[in-house]
């Protein structure tokens, strides 16, 4: 991120001067050479905000271009009255008495860079090194640009002995770019065209890198364009149009910018000084730093007192005329990257995608204990240690090999062999932390299942799940395969064991459980667990009958008759869901597995919508049955272990009603169920509100008995000290 620092004032400006003629680096660190629009040149030490020297030309004369410092000699150079060149040193006081050279042509600008002889740019577009010019001040100067053309901006770029002068000229609203190479001199000329009508370039920056001149131009439309000019191109006489690319579009409120200035801070950051709309929609002069790579505004600083539209940038500081003062604003640019902008700086080291070679920690641990035992038993410590170390390392080496071999085998061996091979591993796994091994085995087996339609090692998979080493994320395809094969036994186990099943899979399981036909269910060997405790086996048959009805798409008991409220009131036994469980024991056991599994209701809700109306109804009936069962005893729990508790049941009821509210309301079969559920819930609410009252009374009673505590003025009590 780029940031603008706290600005400070370098100096005040004469009122009405309308800015400065220029600021140039002052021949040393922290020095700046200011040329005001009138007659004087002042050298400042920037950080001290202190002038070091000031020079003025005679009354009547005018300095016509910014004074520069010759870095090689430490002299200062200025031009007054366009043609008269003055060169002086720090100790000189009076400009009248310093070196003077009168030139034959008007000077446009002086350019000076460290490690470069100063350049004099004439208004004709010609350029001379200072020394060469001073050798013969009155030498004739050729005209590079046509007479009608006016220079708008010049810049000198320097790269490895190569000096390039970039010139922008204007002629009746048409802008041209000249790139002049010096030593050997050559000239490239381009025409600048603006896309938008009446959009004129306002400010430019140029830089040279790898023999390519980069020109950035800010147009009055608010666009910043970038153009590349290669120095390798041969100079041609014919005019080319400079190709340009849009770098950035500034938000501009008024139709066009009047004054704006651009400064390149580094490769990707530019500073723009312009009257831009601020947050409050009023246009104010402000200084903004943009990242051109990501087109993001990095920082902004309002300059409420107005600016002259001039911006200079030297040594990490921006110079802006702010009101009647010259402000210096230090800046910092750190290179931005998208990942850092998003807070996700990419880790340099790429993690190995390879499968982790598994380690039998058991073997390690056993080895460790052996080591201890041996150390205790054998008096010759060094020996035992040495032998053991080798033994230990051999264990460590051998074990992964063994496992790798096993994993290889699993990919090929037959169904019957698999069990044999895995048996020792399972027995080991129960007490060790070998999630990785379990995951690898499961992945191999499941992928084989996917490839070979006949291959399905159910027992091995169940045993794998039973080890409690597996989780959903270790082998996501396991449940998918089981769902495909409708292997409810594995699904039940997974639901009971895995802590991280996605809600979509949970819902898919639920759907499978609800839609399974009874015949398949009868065939499946399912651990019914504690379901026996609350589903009367005597009712099994009837429940089955009910199930058959569901299978036929017809509604079970409560909806047997076309129900309405009156009838329901009259025939309470019809709605009496307490008596009959709507599902048989096996299905109940499966559904319980879903009920007790972990889920998040936001994620489960959309998937619940996949259930069909009949499935919803059946599930709701079962939930109601459980709910009623729960409330039969005081502790509101179902008997047995691994059974859903009342909160889980109620959560699922709410979820189901949420997901299928419209469907249930529309379904005629559901009417009776809903009514009975509503009645029951209402009764419960009443019951609990009664409990509330009792609780309140008891609390008061408690308070009252507590208040009795302070005895009266006199009492006789018994105290026993034991």
């Amino acid at each position, binding site marked *: 991120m780029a940031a603008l620092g706290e600005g400070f004032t370098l100096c005040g400006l004469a009122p009405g001067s309308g800015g400065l003629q220029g600021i140039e680096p002052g021949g040393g660190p922290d020095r700046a050479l200011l040329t005001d629009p009138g007659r004087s040149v002042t050298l400042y030490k920037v950080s001290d905000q202190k002038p070091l020297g000031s020079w003025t030309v005679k009354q009547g004369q005018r300095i016509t271009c910014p004074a520069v410092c010759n870095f090689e000699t430490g002299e200062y150079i200025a031009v007054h009255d366009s043609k008269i060149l003055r060169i002086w040193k720090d100790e000189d006081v009076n400009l009248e008495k310093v070196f003077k050279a009168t030139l034959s042509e008007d000077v446009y600008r002086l350019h000076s860079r460290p490690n470069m002889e100063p350049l004099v740019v004439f208004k004709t577009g010609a350029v001379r090194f200072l020394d060469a010019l001073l050798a013969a001040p009155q030498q004739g100067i050729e005209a590079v640009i046509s007479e009608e053309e006016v220079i708008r901006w010049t810049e000198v770029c320097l790269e490895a002995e190569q000096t390039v002068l970039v010139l922008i000229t204007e002629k009746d609203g048409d802008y041209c770019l000249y790139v002049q190479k010096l030593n050997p001199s050559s000239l490239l000329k381009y025409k600048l065209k603006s896309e938008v009508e009446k959009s004129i370039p306002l400010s430019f920056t140029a830089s040279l890198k790898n023999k390519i001149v980069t020109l950035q131009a800010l147009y009055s439309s608010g666009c910043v364009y970038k153009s590349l000019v290669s120095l390798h191109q041969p100079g041609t006489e014919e005019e080319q149009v400079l190709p340009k690319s849009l770098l950035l579009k500034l938000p501009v409120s008024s139709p066009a910018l009047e004054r704006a200035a651009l400064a390149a801070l580094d490769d990707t950051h530019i500073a723009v000084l312009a009257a831009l709309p601020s947050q409050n929609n009023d246009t104010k002069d402000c200084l903004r730093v943009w990242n051109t790579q990501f087109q993001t505004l990095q920082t902004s600083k309002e300059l409420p007192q107005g600016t002259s539209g001039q911006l200079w940038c030297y040594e990490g500081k921006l110079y802006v005329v702010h009101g009647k003062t010259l402000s210096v604003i230090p800046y910092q640019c750190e290179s931005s990257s998208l990942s850092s902008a998003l807070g996700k700086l990419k880790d340099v080291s790429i993690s190995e995608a390879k499968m982790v070679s598994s380690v039998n920690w058991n073997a390690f641990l056993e080895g460790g204990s052996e080591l201890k035992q041996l150390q205790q038993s054998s008096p010759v410590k060094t020996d035992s240690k040495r032998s053991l170390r080798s033994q230990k390392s051999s264990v460590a080496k051998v074990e992964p090999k063994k496992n790798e071999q096993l994993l290889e085998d699993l990919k090929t061996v037959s169904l019957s062999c698999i069990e044999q091979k895995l048996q020792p591993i399972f027995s080991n796994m129960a007490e060790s932390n070998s999630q990785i091994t379990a995951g690898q085995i499961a992945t191999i087996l499941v992928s084989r299942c996917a490839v070979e339609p006949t291959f399905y090692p159910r027992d091995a998979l169940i045993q794998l799940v039973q080890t409690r080493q597996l989780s959903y994320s270790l082998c996501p395809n396991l449940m998918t395969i089981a769902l495909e094969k409708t292997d409810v036994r594995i699904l039940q186990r997974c639901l009971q064991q895995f802590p991280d099943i996605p809600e979509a899979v949970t819902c898919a399981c639920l759907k499978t459980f609800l839609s399974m036909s009874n015949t398949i269910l009868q065939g499946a060997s399912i651990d019914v667990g504690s379901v026996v405790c609350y589903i009367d086996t005597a009712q099994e048959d009837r429940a089955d009958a009910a199930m058959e009805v569901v299978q036929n798409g017809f509604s079970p008991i409560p909806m047997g008759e076309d129900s309405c409220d009156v009838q329901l009131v009259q025939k309470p036994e019809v709605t009496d869901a307490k008596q009959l469980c709507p599902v048989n024991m096996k299905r109940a056991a499966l559904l319980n597995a879903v009920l007790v599994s972990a889920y998040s209701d936001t994620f489960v809700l959309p998937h619940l919508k996949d259930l069909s109306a009949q499935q919803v109804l059946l599930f709701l009936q079962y939930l109601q049955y459980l709910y009623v069962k729960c409330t039969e005893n005081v502790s509101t729990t179902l008997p047995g272990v691994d059974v859903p508790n009342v909160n889980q049941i109620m959560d699922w009821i709410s979820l189901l009603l949420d997901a299928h509210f419209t469907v249930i309301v529309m379904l005629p079969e559901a009417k009776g169920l809903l009514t009975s559920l509503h009645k029951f819930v209402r009764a419960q609410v009443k019951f609990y509100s009664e409990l509330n009252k009792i609780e309140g009374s008891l609390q008061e009673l408690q308070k009252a008995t507590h208040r009795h505590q*302070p*005895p*009266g*003025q*006199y*009492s*006789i*009590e*018994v*105290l*026993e*000290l*034991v």
Partner: protein
Amino acid sequence: MGEFQVHRVRFFHLLPSGIRCMDYSGLSDRLALARLDGSVELYNLAANCFQEKVFPGNESRSTEAICWAAECRLFTAGLSGDILEYDLHNLCIKYSLNGFGGPIWSMAANRSGTHLAIGCEDGSVKLFQVLPEKIQYETSLDRQKGRILSLAWHPAASHIVTGSIDMIRVLDVKTGHAVRRIAVDRSKMGMQNRECVVWGVAFLSSGTLVSADSAGKVQFWDSEKGTLIQTHQVTNVDVLALSVSQNEDSLVVGTSEGTVFQFQLVPVRTGETARRWVRTKPFRHHTHDVRTVVHGPSTIISGGLDSQLVIRPLMEKVESKTYDAALRKFVFPHRRLVSCAQKAKLLLFQFPQYLELWRLGKTEAVGKHDEVLPISRSQEHLLQLKKKGPEHICCSAISPCGSWISYATPSRLYVHRLQYENGVSISKMPRLLYSAHQILFSADSTKLFVASDRVSVHMFKLSETGCKHVHTFQAKSGSAEATCLLAASADGNWLAAASLDLEINVYSVKLLKHHCTLPVYKCPVTALAIQPMSNNLIIAYSDQQLFEFSIQEKQYSTWCRKVQQHGLHRDWRERDTPITNITFNPSQPAHILLHDTYSLCIIDKTLPLPDDKTPLLNQAALRNLSEGARKAHSHAFKISKKFQPLLFMELLDEGTLVVVERPLTDIQAQLPPPVRQKKFGT
């Protein structure tokens, strides 16, 4: 182990008087405290804040100011216009001197203690020179308008600052002229034109004045220029008291709301030398007006109308975060105000102005632990005996048989004989002109022992016709301090007397001679008793140590040595309040019954002593154990905290105890309503 029927008495309506003023003497580490009823108390802060000496009050006195001067001499001044000096040895007033300026509102001694300045009703500040054995009027500074409600010396004793209504003045001690006059801003929210009373002033050596006023402001002034430096509006009600620490970097103020604020002189920024006064900590331990605050070297001490003395250690000044850092509150006197006639089951309550005699009730029922028994005969108020004259009662006693009552004021000793045939009749005995600090009847009610001045104990013989002075026991040491505690043996042979200079003498009553003197311990004695069978003297000291001294053998008993070797349990040593009464169970010679304000304890000398790892309070835990396991876990200290705050406990007969409680809520109910404060949500 011990099951008792406890007569739980809550009809002793003692109302401690509010605290008016305090002064701390760094030299002796003692705090002098004057109450609204004119009584003055001395607390020995070095000896676990024990209330060492009490000067009874007087209806004709009202103390407004108290101060220490010239090497631990104590002076008070009040609205009677007199300055009093106290005799700290014999607990009486040495002399009084009229200031001739009307009621005295304020008094302060200069730092060297050579002069006293009093601020009078007539607006004058008078200086008294403190001479050995007396004080002498020296000069009167220029009289100003309005009473001088507060005054303070400059540490260099060159100037005195006075506070009166709406005005602070600086007086030059040499010339006597007022050199500066500062008007204090009256304006206060709501009440525009109420006068502003400057309740407290202080003069810092830098020349800064500090004032606390009734508009709730604490202000800092420049005494040179008379300009205001800083204002802190600490409250909307009065700021009543002000005290500055010795090194002048911290000060405390007390307000009518019961809040104490600390101000500290802290650097404006870290590392800078410029410092300013900043309000740092509020303390709220009082419910009513804080009339006085004292900034001790490491504590803030405050007292007020709610009669609580609060000693709050400043955590930054306390090095060890242990018991020393605990907040201490004192409400009740550290001495007995109740005496009991065991045989007659009577209780005598001592109030400052009168005595009350009550007969205890009866019950026929028996019960288990924690049960309240039905009362078959309720308590009976037999007598209220008002004292004569303005002086308050300083001590009282009832004989074990219940037929004699004796009490004393600072100047006189009274003995009354009671007869209980159809009602109570009282017959007066001739008044005796003896000073009494404690009165004790012998176990057979035939003798009266009176602890008196100069380590003497007077013995009177009681008969139906009157009481006759028989003998005066005088210690060999010839110390000037008064005797303060007495204990007589049940067989009537021995008398133990502890004096204020920490000396304990044992006299033989039969032979009328001095028997022995105990080794002197560093702390004051808080309770003293002689065990009936063994004639061992049990002594409780203010640092919570217990000693047992065998009178026959003239040495500490083996149990005592064992206790001292083993050390007492930390929780026992860190109790807040001193043991004020020790008694014994005749049927259990190994038991010692004692109590402080918050616990009742039976010490079984046969059981092992607890160490710091085992909990001292183990009654609840033991109760859950089986009989066998109890034996293994029980230790010598059996403590019940059921009765709180406990003013008195005595064994009536075997298996019957009487405890006198005075619940704090009952005291608070008697206080005037506190300043109403806006509480959130009301």
